[in-house]
């Protein structure tokens, strides 16, 4: 491993000694790390196993391997909670809410990455407020505002709120990405007499697509997980996203044997797992943190 920054390039003797010590400590650390991995994915895998057990096997204990695995629990929960509607709504909110946030954030991110906008500090302060604000503190005014606009308990109202509340994070993330695009490229365009819009549209936007994809996905997942706004602003079950609809699983009707709630929560996670698998390398590479640190 020549690119290991922690490895000394000393004399051969020290080298051997170092390698032996490194192997032992590496083995111990690896066991610990695998234990950590088990604690972090184990619960979900256990849920997958539990969801495949028929009712009768419930009393055999949580770790018993299913004797007659079947998808009955999935069938019951799928119909009982109306998962097609819930999943459809969640996809709609996440896809459009994140798209709105990105759309609103593109030009501000471009402006902040390229120009010395007067009051820059003030804008960053405002963005931080939007980023950090605990949602519960603005529930009441948002609730009354949406009610006056007749947007309470509507899909459009919720998408609008998600879009605007996703915007600060998107601005910071996209600005971070756009700052990393070499300034020489647009400098040349400006000298040729291109307008701000032309530079944005022809140069910055096409070059930002990888960054846009990452931050769009992160926003998608954030909205998929979102709970407070959906819980308060929606009343009609046909508008519920998965997070709110799933609350029903926590009732005697579904909790009697653990297979039904397990199946429900596995279903709720499947779309995200698919997304996670597709984009795993982008997340793992620390793009998220890189985007925020800017």
């Amino acid at each position, binding site marked *: 491993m020549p690119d290991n920054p922690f490895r000394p390039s000393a004399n051969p003797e020290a080298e051997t000694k170092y390698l032996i010590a490194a192997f032992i400590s590496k083995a111990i650390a690896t066991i610990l790390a695998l234990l950590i991995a088990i604690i972090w994915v184990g619960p979900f895998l256990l*849920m997958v196993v539990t969801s495949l057990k028929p009712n009768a096997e419930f009393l055999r204990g949580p770790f018993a391997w299913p004797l007659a695995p079947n998808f009955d629990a999935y069938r019951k929960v799928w119909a009982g909670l109306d998962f097609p509607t819930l999943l459809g709504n969640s996809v709609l909110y996440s896809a459009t809410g994140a798209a709105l946030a990105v759309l609103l954030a593109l030009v501000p991110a471009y402006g902040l990455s390229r120009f010395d906008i007067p009051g820059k500090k003030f804008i960053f302060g405002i963005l931080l407020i*939007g980023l950090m604000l605990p949602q519960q503190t603005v*529930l009441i005014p948002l609730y009354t505002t949406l009610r006056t606009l007749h947007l309470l308990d509507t899909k459009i109202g919720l998408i609008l709120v998600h879009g605007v509340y996703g915007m600060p994070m998107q601005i910071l993330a996209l600005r971070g990405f756009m700052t990393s695009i070499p300034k020489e490229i647009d400098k040349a365009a400006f000298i040729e007499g291109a307008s701000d819009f032309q530079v944005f549209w022809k140069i910055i936007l096409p070059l930002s697509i990888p960054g846009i994809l990452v931050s769009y996905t992160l926003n998608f997942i954030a909205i998929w997980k979102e709970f*407070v706004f959906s819980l308060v602003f929606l009343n009609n079950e046909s508008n519920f996203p998965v997070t709110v609809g799933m609350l029903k699983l926590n009732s005697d009707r579904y909790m009697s044997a653990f297979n039904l709630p397990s199946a429900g929560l596995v279903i709720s996670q499947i779309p995200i797992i698919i997304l996670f698998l597709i984009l795993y390398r982008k997340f793992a590479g*620390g793009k998220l943190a890189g985007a925020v640190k800017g």
Partner: protein
Amino acid sequence: MENATVRNEKNAIHFALNHRFVTIFGVVLPLLLFAAFIGYPIVYTIYLSFFKWNGMAKIMRFIGLDNYAYLIHSQEFYLAVLNNIKWMLVSLCFPVSLGFLIAYGMRARIVYFTGLVRSAVFFPVTMSLVAAGLMFLLILNPAFGALNSLLRGVGLGFLVREWFGDYHIAIYTLAVIFGWAFTGLPMIFYYAGIGDIPKETLDAARIEGAGHFKIIRSVALPQLRPVTAVVVLLTIFESLKAFDLVVVLTKGAPFGATNVLGYLIYNESFWNSRFGYGACLSVAVLFLSTIAAAAVLRKVLKGAFDA
């Protein structure tokens, strides 16, 4: 022709005239939306905290500081603040330090299977807290749950608890579940941060014979101060937002032992129809978050967001 980024445009009017596109769509539009959906609600919350209002009636009754007087004498409020502090301390200790150690372990190549460990720890970050809550409702079930039966199985039966029913433990159970779900974020932040430390710095420390503990303490942590600031800030605010797990798992029970500020606001406003008092609680939360943000920002984040 001068370069746009170099041109001296301290004058706002000059800037607005020279860059109409950026000004309209990059500054004015987002600021208007921010004002309507974030700024106005904050101001309105403060305004509402001086009123008594059930949320429906046409008339809101001005009652001055009565809500605040009630708040100051409310046991429930102090219990909730205390619970948020416990939540915050657990979150600052376990997910942040563990996230750092995992990230360091991977960057220093002291573990194999780094990809596997990394995606395992990151996985719960993609999970909604409602789903995670339901999952642990099953796993921590006192009679049939996996954890208690595991403890009994390995002869640690004396550790078996009613994880959500025990007055003294319930809040820590929730905080640890939250920490479990949260660890992936500090890990990713530190993973990126350690990757940014110049290789020469770490090489030099290693050649001089510094152990991992020494490297962490004298090289990595000082270099990672901005990352730590972001992570700490994020953790504090996530702790103040604590809500989802409480709704799914305990609804504040037993006897308010898991009541946190976020849940108290929701409960008072939308269940007890005391919107004025709910707003007053919100102002308290805003106040606490401002203090926390100011403390952290002043100390470490100086200038991390300009440049």
